[in-house]
């Protein structure tokens, strides 16, 4: 009788607490959901900010001017000597063309601020045109030339016109001129090819990621050529040949620890060993490639070993059974079967290497470099380092360009990771 009563009591208590417990359950579940959503929100926020800041950089405002290729300016001697032609003052042509459009602007100061609407790249463009086609001299030609980055910002609507004139870099008078140009149909946004082709520049409208992308390409090439064979070889040895002893244990511990060493420490290694001890050139992609090789090797080795492990022992036994030597068994049967997994690991390692910048700062790949590198031994920067450099620049136009460079970098990373996933899906085998 006592038991029945206590049972009743227990049930009572359980029932009474049930509502609270269910509420707790729901709350807990909600926390989990909220965390997952928060994480997703961060993904969206980062991508949203970068893309909304950067997509406009793929277009660049250009101005249509009617240039008179004045022989008196370009080639006073009349000899058509290319050296002479290259040295002429093309700025004057561009300025003259602009003055023609605004005959009412007279005062020196006004003229100067009018000239500031054009990029200094306009002169280079005119020079290249003349050098490519000397017959232009003495003729009139309508030319689209890049506008100054401030004009670009106004056209893209990044500059708030309602601000007082003093806190704007573009003055009221210039705004009026820009509007006049736009009304006359002489202001258009064109695809910004210079952004993809040229190297760094102090002028945002002339700066591009071409040099940095090429530097990254050379670096990844060096890294791939070194780290894939070395990584696969090391993995094959450790997985298939290595005896179980202290030495091999030491190697394994080392690989696991190296995978977690901060990347900047690899940069210190590169600075001390490659540059100061071996006397390799500073800022060269080949040194960057070497450092990144050491950094990605552990990743590749670990992935390759996992791929080798997944090949069933029956394959090995069958090969040995028909008389293959151990080396033949590994090279003819095991490695080909494990190759997709190894490639996947390598691509992921490469993607990480592409996004890495801290060690590159250590080995001097942060220089301001205008020329495109012609080989892995010439000074260059890399894409992430270019982003870091531009992020420090005060001009509004560089904010846009930094974001655009990030978009390009992320696109490459997405492509590489996508390739890795495709490779895994395509060749994955369940034994």
């Amino acid at each position: 009788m006592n038991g029945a009563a206590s049972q009743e009591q227990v049930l009572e208590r359980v029932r009474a607490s049930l509502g609270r417990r269910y509420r707790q359950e729901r709350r807990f579940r909600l926390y989990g959901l909220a965390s997952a959503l928060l994480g997703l929100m961060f993904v969206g926020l980062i991508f949203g900010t970068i893309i909304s800041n950067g997509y406009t950089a793929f277009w660049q405002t250009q101005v249509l001017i009617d240039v008179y290729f004045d022989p008196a300016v370009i080639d006073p001697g009349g000899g058509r000597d290319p050296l002479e032609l290259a040295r002429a003052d093309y700025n004057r042509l561009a300025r003259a063309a602009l003055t023609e459009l605004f005959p009412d602007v007279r005062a020196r100061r006004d003229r100067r601020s009018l000239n500031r609407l054009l990029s200094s790249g306009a002169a280079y463009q005119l020079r290249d045109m003349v050098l490519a086609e000397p017959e232009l001299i003495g003729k009139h030609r309508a030319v689209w030339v890049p506008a100054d980055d401030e004009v670009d910002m106004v056209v893209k609507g990044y500059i708030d016109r309602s601000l007082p004139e003093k806190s704007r870099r573009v003055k009221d008078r210039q705004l009026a001129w820009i509007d006049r140009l736009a009304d006359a149909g002489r202001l258009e946004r064109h695809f910004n090819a210079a952004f993809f082709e040229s190297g760094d520049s102090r002028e945002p409208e002339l700066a591009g990621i071409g040099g940095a992308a090429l530097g990254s390409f050379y670096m990844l090439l060096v890294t791939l050529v070194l780290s894939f064979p070395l990584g696969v070889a090391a993995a094959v040895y450790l997985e298939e040949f290595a005896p179980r002893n202290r030495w091999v244990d030491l190697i394994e511990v080392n690989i696991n620890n190296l995978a977690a060493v901060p990347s900047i420490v690899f940069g210190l290694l590169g600075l001390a060993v490659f540059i100061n001890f071996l006397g390799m050139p500073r800022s060269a992609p080949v040194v960057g490639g070497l450092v990144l090789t050491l950094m990605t090797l552990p990743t590749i080795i670990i992935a390759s070993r996992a791929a080798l492990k997944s090949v069933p022992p029956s394959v090995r036994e069958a090969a040995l059974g028909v008389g293959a030597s151990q080396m033949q068994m590994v090279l003819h049967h095991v490695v080909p079967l494990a190759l997709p997994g190894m490639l996947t690991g390598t691509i992921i390692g490469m993607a990480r290497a592409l996004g890495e910048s801290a060690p590159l700062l250590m080995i001097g790949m942060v220089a301001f470099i205008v020329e495109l590198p012609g080989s892995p031994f010439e000074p260059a920067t890399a894409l992430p380092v270019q982003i870091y450099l531009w992020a420090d620049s005060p001009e509004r136009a560089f904010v846009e360009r930094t974001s655009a460079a990030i978009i390009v970098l992320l696109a490459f990373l997405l492509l590489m990771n996508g390739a890795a996933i495709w490779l895994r899906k395509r060749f994955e085998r369940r034994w």
Partner: protein
Amino acid sequence: MQFETLLLILVAMTVASFVLGRQRAVAVAGRCGGIRALHSLPKYYGYYAAICCALPGLALLLLWLGLADRVVVERVVDSLPAELRELPEAQRSLLVNDIKNIAAGQFVDPGKREELAVAAELYLSLKDSSRRILSGLIVLLGFVGFGWSWLRLRPELRARNRVESVARIGLALASTLAIFTTIGIVASVLFEALRFFDRIPVSEFLFGLTWSPQTALRADQVGSSGAFGAVPLFAGTALISLIAMTVALPIGLMTAIYLSEYASRRVRAWVKPALEVLAGVPTVVYGYFAALTVAPLLRGFGQSLGLDVASESALGAGLVMGIMIIPFVSSLSDDVINAVPQAMRDGSLGLGATHSETIKRVVIPAALPGIVGGALLAVSRAIGETMIVVMAAGLAANLTVNPLEAVTTVTVQIVTLLVGDQEFDSAKTLAAFALGLVLFVVTLLLNIIALQVVRRYREQYE
């Protein structure tokens, strides 16, 4: 001879050796009972000849790449007039740089002495002759090696075994690279750090409270050694890492719990890779995000509350670093939670516990060692992270626990001390290596402990 041509010749000789060796094996076998008389397949005799031809030359080439420039530079320095030769080390290396620049035909200050031009010429001629000697030796070694294999080639030669053992040695060498990397890291960092500790006592570095390496710029200044007390850096690193972990640990852990315990298979299949995108974003992007978006946001928010938030506050950098670590924590916790045996969950549910009670009282305690291990790995990640703090944290070393102020970290200081042109011997640059040593040791310890904890936990349920 151009370097590329040399390589091409070496490759051509190797290929020729392969073909000739193979043919010779077949020919020799033909004389004594056909191809079956050979110990190995004919191609192995070809490989054998190719290896004999190329390997000595390649070894020489590697040696030359490592040493030639040093030897040449030494000879050039020896040829310089005495007063230039006896310059201090740092100036001499500048001089050598000038000589190399002249030799490369680059523009060099015309005020430079006549001697340098002479030295540059000597440098060029020495380089040229060393390259010529190298080419000759490599070709010679190739012929000798091939000739040797030609003479030794007999049907009973165990060519396959030899080729395979060479290949095996190659594989083993590749695997030791990891050890050499570690040795390289330890040696380079330790060596420079020891030179730093010659000038600044270890105790001052580890326990000093002021960090201002910039004062060391002028050599004639009183107390020019600057202040190298690294405690503010350690404190700043700890503060930012702490903020990062406060963000990442709860969010990452709860996400992992939600995804592994509650979410349906379809949600999981979409949300997990989407979150892993965060792990693939380069850190420089996070740094830019922190500096461009988060810092102004925090500043504005602080102003509306009447707080003064520094534009390079520890909070901003820490928050963004936390976001970066979320996927790391969540995927590690996910693994650990999935490793908890289903029987334990079933037991708890069978006794009438709700799902969340099961998770809180059974699953998490069981998975705790693994989670702690994962958290330690995340901490070591946060400590070693560079780009976010370089772009979003401060440069001045403040000893403070206020997250709204700007602090600096170990990695930021390494970067600022080493980026740009500096002589390599100043206490300033050496200090960067001392900081690197601390960073390496601390992250290494954290990793070893974390891996140990995780491994022990795994064994518990296997």
